[in-house]
Every structure is written in C-alpha cells, then in structure tokens.
C-alpha cells in the first residue's frame, strides 16, 4: 500500500554541500533560535507580568514567573523553528504536495536535524537518552558523596535538593523515553515489516522535544534550583524559586513527547504491519511497545494538566493547591500519582518486552506462553490505573479506601508474575548461550524479583507505615527500574546495537561491564532496604549517626557502580569508534525479522515489503518459516489468519 502510493526513493538523496548543510535547518540554529526565543518571550512576559503584579501585588514581585515561563515556552518555539518543524505545515498551507521524507540523505548532518528515517531518529534518541542517563547518574554520584557524612553539608543544602531533583526527574523522564525512543522507533517498523513509522515528522519531533526537555531541566541550575524532587509536590512547587519552572516545562515537554510517541507507535502497529503479520505473530517486544504506548497516551495528559495548574498557581496566582484559599495540596498528590503509577509501568513494560524478546534467541526455544505474556502486559497496563493511592497511604486521603488500594496493588502482581512464568517456561530444557545480552536478561529476573517482593511490603498498609517515604521505597524502585528496566535496556543495547550500527560490541568488555554492574548494583541497593526500615527518610542530606557506616559502604559501592557504567561507555567508544569490527547480518542466529535483513540496514529497510509466514520464535523447528522476502501477495488466503 505504501510503496504504491508513495514510492520510496531508493537512491540515497544527494547530500548538499557542507555550507548548504550548515546553513540549512539543524540543531545549531535550533540552539540559537531557542536562546533568541527565550529572550524575546521573557521580555514580553516581563511586560505582561509587570501589569499583573502591579494589580495584585502593589509592591512588585520578587520572581518574574510569567516572564520565565513564557521565556521557556519561547525557547521551545525557537527550537522547533531552528530544526525546521514549521516548514512542512507552512509548505502544505501554500499548497505543496505531501511528502513523507525530509532530511534523509547519507551525510552525517542527518543526525543533527529533523530526519524522517526512523533509524536515524532512533540513533539520535539513543545518544540523547544515554547522554542524559549519564548526567543523571553523575548526579547520583554526587548524592552519594553528600551521604558519606551523616550531618555535615558537603554541598549547600539547597544545591543538594536540586541534585536529588535533577537525578530523579532526569532518570524518570529520560528512561521513560529510553526504550520506546531508541529501540521502539528502530525496531517496531522493522519488526512489523514496515519502512517507516506512521508519522515520521512527529517521530522526529518527539526526539527533539526530549532533547530540549533534558536541557530545559538542566537550566534549573541557572534559575536557583528546585527543592521538590521528581514528584514536584505542591504547594512546595508553588513556593519554590524559579528553577521549578524549568522542572515544570521540562516535564511538560516529556509528557507531550510521550503522548506523541505513544500515538505514533499505536498507529504504526495498527496500520503498517506487513502482509501476514497477524496479531498472533507480532513480536512480544512490539506488544510491550503497544502497551507502553497505551499507558503513555492515557497517563501523560493528566500530568500535563497538573503541571499546567502549578504553572498557573505560580504565574497568575491561581490557588489550585493552596488550602487557605480553597485549593488542596492533595489534588496534586492525586493527579501526579494518577500519572505517576502508570509512569513506573511505562518504565517496566519495555523491560519485559526486551527480556522476553531476547530470551528465546539465547535459550533456542520458542517464547513460552506468548498469549499469556501479551495478556500479562495488558493486565499490568490496565491495572496500573487503579493503584495510585498506595503512594498516599499515609496522607489521610479517604483512608477507608486503603484496603481497596492494597488489594489492587497486590492484584497487579498476578500479571507481573506471568512474565516470570514466561521466562521460566522459555528456559525449561533450553540450550542457553551465555552471551552478554542473555546475562542481562537473567539478571533482570533476579533483580526484578527482589523489587517485586519488596513491593509487597509497601503494598501492605501496616508494613508501609514503616517503609513509606523511606530509603526502603528508594531501594524498591531502584530494584525495579534500574535492576529491571536498565538491565533489560543494557541487554537490548548489547543485543541490537550490532544491527543498528553495523559494528559488533566487544563481548569481553561487555561481560566485565555486566558482572561489575550486577554485583555493585546489588551491593548498593540491597543495604538501603535496611537503611529505610531503620529510619532513613528519602531525600535527606542528614540522617541518624547510627546509619553512618551503612551509608559509607553504600556510597563506596555506588561509586564502583559508577565505574561499571564507565566500562560500558568505554566499551561503546572502543567498539563503535576506535576498534570497529563489521557485524554480520545475523550474529545471534535469531529468527526474528530484523535479523533477516542486511547489516547495516538500508534506509528503505526492505527491498520489497516482506510477507510474514510465521512468528519469530520458531526455534526447535529448523524449517519453520518466518518471513518470505520474495513471495509478495503469494500467501494462501487462510494463512494470514493463522
């Protein structure tokens, strides 16, 4: 259908000259225009704000939030302008013909601008999210440095809180884009036999908004920081200095990007599957992306609304969250966690998908219980909207509902447990090859189990009285997000990067990275369960002296974990930049569609849209057909429904 309506330009577009590229729309202009946009909008906001302030606040105001918020929005407009996102709508308004291709050529410049090749966008996403992952990780190192002392403040207390907020917000936002962005955008079209995503420009937009969100968040350090952590509790957020505006705008950008990426993936999977790619043959990773997208599309708008309320409270002095003026601080708690709990599953489901996708390849067995895995993911996704008040067990909000939320929270462990059963069924009598991706997948089950079981303690109200808001919670969600998602993501990177880049990744360094990461991850976070139960609240810079030894130990282990991440970075530099080795088309002997096409993948992905003849897990059946690249339209009518 696509190739008929919109023929793909097979020959790579001739790249303009260096000067032409430099002067065209790209990230350099985006940065320049973003700065100009900030300045212009800030000036405008200052004019507006001066009038409002004069009315409500005769003495003038200390913080010009209207100007700063408008300035940040101005920088978004400038950023999009510089990257050329407004060109196409303008051209269409002027009557130009529609086109699905923009910025696709063979030059390196395509990585620095709007490009509609989903593989380019995915690589941009990978570099961007990994960059911010390391920035946030660096902040974690500084947090652990502060916590080597039980009372002395190595960093001024306000800066410490900003560190905590930067680490949390950046990890949460960048890791929610960390799988769906790079791997989702790269793999979903190829896995379903498509040449592109449904909305290639929106795909590029989500990527560039994510990048901007990261830098906007970092700009909080220039605006006085923010004291609220990633949860941004109002009315503290209403009260905070202008750095919180960076947090609000950054999170809003991520929310918008999540909605757009979710819609894009859902439409892609529904409309662009190749012939024969029935729902029963859809790779489990694609299902994970689908369920993640459903969560993103449904949850992120609530966040956007809540963020908008805080912006309004801060700028025009509405009182959504101020009890003495008729608002309620609990409103933020409810709205935020209504988004926040699905958000943590936005961070979990991609991990399930990666692990269940990789496991069959190295177990040399079909994915066991495929339908159950899909059902489990949908169960998790839908039930994640019914549990959010377990974050508020101690808040006094309609406390009589606590047993209900305790029940739903524990109920969600049933679909999560199914993922374990899938993994174990796949490992049963398997022929395991201990490659680096497989090691990460096995470690996923080890870590996620501890994360899940500690979640049971938190779901039980009586036990939660002790652990709520303490380092126990912090250890719990690091076990699920870092031990789960990040381990799975690492596995995914080691597994798919040879295909994505065309170069193999060093396995020896990879194993060193895995073992150091696995050991030091557990040594860092397991003791923190104890720290929490012994009375260490989250986000503190001072704690009881009796916990000092424990914290020093954890800090040292955390630094070792940081070194392990440097091994990972070194491995990437070594394998992709310094000592390149061409990867073969199918180094893992996988049956999945993405490994049946050439490495590096041509920009059009498939010479002809393939016909899918089986699911990608036909291990143990050597002749099981998976894909037919030549027999377009030759599928028997009955086979498509099989």
């Amino acid at each position, binding site marked *: 259908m696509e190739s008929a309506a919109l023929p793909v330009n097979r020959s790579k577009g001739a790249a303009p000259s260096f000067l032409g590229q430099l002067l065209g729309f790209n990230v350099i202009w985006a940065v320049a225009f973003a700065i100009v946009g900030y300045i212009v909008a800030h000036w405008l906001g200052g004019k507006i704000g001066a009038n409002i302030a004069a009315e409500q*606040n005769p*003495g*003038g*105001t*200390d*913080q010009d939030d209207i100007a700063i918020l408008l300035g940040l929005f101005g920088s978004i407009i400038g950023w999009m302008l510089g990257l050329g996102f407004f060109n196409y709508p303008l051209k269409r308004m002027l009557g130009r013909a529609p086109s699905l291709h923009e910025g696709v050529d063979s030059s390196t410049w395509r990585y620095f601008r709007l490009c509609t090749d989903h593989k380019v966008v995915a690589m941009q996403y990978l570099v961007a999210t990994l960059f911010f992952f390391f920035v946030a990780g*660096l902040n974690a190192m*500084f947090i652990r440095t502060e916590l080597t002392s039980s*009372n*002395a*403040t190595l*960093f*001024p*207390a*306000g*800066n410490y809180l*900003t*560190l905590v907020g930067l680490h949390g917000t950046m990890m949460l936002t960048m890791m929610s884009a960390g799988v769906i962005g790079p791997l989702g955008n790269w793999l979903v079209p190829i896995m379903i036999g498509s040449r592109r995503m449904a909305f290639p420009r929106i795909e590029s937009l989500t990527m560039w908004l994510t990048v901007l969100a990261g830098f906007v968040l970092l700009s909080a*350090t220039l605006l*006085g920081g923010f*004291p609220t952590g990633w949860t941004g509790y109002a*009315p503290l957020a*209403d*009260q*905070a*200095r202008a750095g919180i505006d960076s947090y609000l705008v950054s999170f809003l950008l991520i929310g918008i990007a999540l909605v757009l990426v979710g819609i894009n993936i859902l439409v892609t999977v529904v409309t662009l599957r190749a012939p024969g790619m029935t729902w029963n043959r859809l790779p489990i990773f694609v299902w994970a992306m689908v369920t993640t997208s459903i969560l993103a599309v449904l949850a992120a708008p609530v966040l956007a609304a809540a963020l908008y309320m805080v912006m309004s409270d801060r700028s025009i002095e509405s009182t959504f969250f*101020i009890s003495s003026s008729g608002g309620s601080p609990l409103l933020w708690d409810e709205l935020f966690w209504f988004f926040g709990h699905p958000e943590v599953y936005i961070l979990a489901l991609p991990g399930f998908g990666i692990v269940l996708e990789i496991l069959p390849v190295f177990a040399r067995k079909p994915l066991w219980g495929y339908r159950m895995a899909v059902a489990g993911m949908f169960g998790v996704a839908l039930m994640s909207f019914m549990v959010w008040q377990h974050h508020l067990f101690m808040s006094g909000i309609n406390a009589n509902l606590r047993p209900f939320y305790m029940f739903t929270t524990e109920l969600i462990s049933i679909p999560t447990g199914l993922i374990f059963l899938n993994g174990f069924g796949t490992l049963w009598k398997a022929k395991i090859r201990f490659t680096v991706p497989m090691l990460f997948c096995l470690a996923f089950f080890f870590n996620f189990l501890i994360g899940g079981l500690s979640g049971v303690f938190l779901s039980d109200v009586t036990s939660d009285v002790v652990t709520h808001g303490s380092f126990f919670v912090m250890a719990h969600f690091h076990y699920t997000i870092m031990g789960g998602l990040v381990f799975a993501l690492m596995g995914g990177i080691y597994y798919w990067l040879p295909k994505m880049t065309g170069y193999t990744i060093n396995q020896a360094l990879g194993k060193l990275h895995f073992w150091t990461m696995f050991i030091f991850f557990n040594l860092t976070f397991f003791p923190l369960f104890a720290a929490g139960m012994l009375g260490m609240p989250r986000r503190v810079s001072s704690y009881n002296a009796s916990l000092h030894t424990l914290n020093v130990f954890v800090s040292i282990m955390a630094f070792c974990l940081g070194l392990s991440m440097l091994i990972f970075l070194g491995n990437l*530099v070594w394998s992709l*930049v*310094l000592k390149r080795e061409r990867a073969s088309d199918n180094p893992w002997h996988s049956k999945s569609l993405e490994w049946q096409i050439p490495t590096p993948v041509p920009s059009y992905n498939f010479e002809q849209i393939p016909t899918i003849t089986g699911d990608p897990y036909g291990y143990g059946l050597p002749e099981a057909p998976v894909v037919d690249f030549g027999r377009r339209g030759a599928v028997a009518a009955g086979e498509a429904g099989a």
Partner: protein
Amino acid sequence: MRVRLLAVAATFAALIALVAVYVVYFLESGPPAVAAVINRDGSASLTLQVVGSYGNHPFPDWVSYLVKDPSGKWRHTTIWKLPAHELVHVTVYQFDSQTGLRNNFLAQVRGTVGGVATYTDVGNTGKGSGLPPYNNTSLSVIPPSEPAHTFTVPDLDLSVPLVGISDSTSNVCAVAPCPMHFAHTTISFSFRTPGAGTYRWQCFVPCAFAFLYGFGGPMQTIGYMDGLLEVA
C-alpha cells in the same frame, strides 16, 4: 584511527571540563564561612544585622542577614564559625519592618541565657499602637505581630524573635550593609554552644515577599534567611 582517538580524547576532556564547571559554579556555590570574634575569656561575640532588602546583586529585594567579621567589616554570609562549649554573645541590628509570625509560639524566647533577650528601639518613631519604645528591655515573650524575623536554631532549641521597626518609620535602610543612623532595633542575647558539629539555623517569620506563605526565595536560600553554625 589516530584521528578518532584524538577526537575521543578531546570529547572526554571537554566532558571532564563541563563536569568541573558544574561542580564549581553550581554544586559548591554557596556563601563563605566567617568566624565570630573570640573574646579574651574564650567566649565569642557575634554581631549581625538583618536588612529588609539586601540592595545588591543578585537579589536586591531579598531580606537578608549579614555578619561582622573579626576585622569589623560587614560580610554577606550566613555560615558562621563558633567555638564549642562556649558562651556566645549575639548582637543583632534589625533594620526590617514588622511582619508578624505564622506560628505565634515562635514569639517565645527560648534557649538563651536567662531565657530572655534584650530589646532596644533606635531611631524608631514608636510602635504604631502607641506602645512605648523598648529601651534595653529584657523580654521572654514579645507580641507576635512585632517580629520582623527570628533567629532560631531548632537543634539547640534556641529561638529569639527579632522585633521589627514600625511601619510608620520613614528612616528605612534600603541597601545593605546598613549604617546605624537608620531606624533599627538592637537585640542582644547570649547562648551556650554545644559540642562540635554543624547546626542549621533559620528565620521563622514569613518574610519572603511574593512567595507562597512568605517562605520561598530568601527563606530557602543559604546566605539570606538560612545558614549554618559551624561549631568547632
């Protein structure tokens, strides 16, 4: 290969430099520590002033504390070094106007020697309500509408409300450091320092103009209305 190696090395060096900038200009950015004056008998004297608007870059309209360093110069910092297990004589020149407390319990003087502080109105045109000005008056509680600020060290259970100047006063200081001819209240009290350690102190009057509950901005920034006592 050599080009790529150089490129990697250059990128790495640039990143290290960025991290260094981040640490120096953001993470470690904070006011310096200033030592109190040590008297002959081993006790310390701490001379402070509180101004309604700092009057200087970067936040000219923020309320702030200042401290007199041993050379007699006013310094804009709230991190003060004190000797351990010693008496500290504090004199505060309070130039800001009255705001009133949010929690009236903080009108109580706590933790000072004798449980009192001494208040004197200087160049002040009266209390507005017709009350006589303080003149070396020792008080353990002051009316909760009068404080402009408090000096409170919660860990030491030390708290002294600092009476503000009257709203009707025209002789108001706008730029720190404030010379003594402007209207102010002089508050003096003594307290005993505990063992070595770092103790935070803060103001409890909602005096941060334009911030919710009067408690953002300077109330949450070390160097203005929050600080540390570095007792050694």
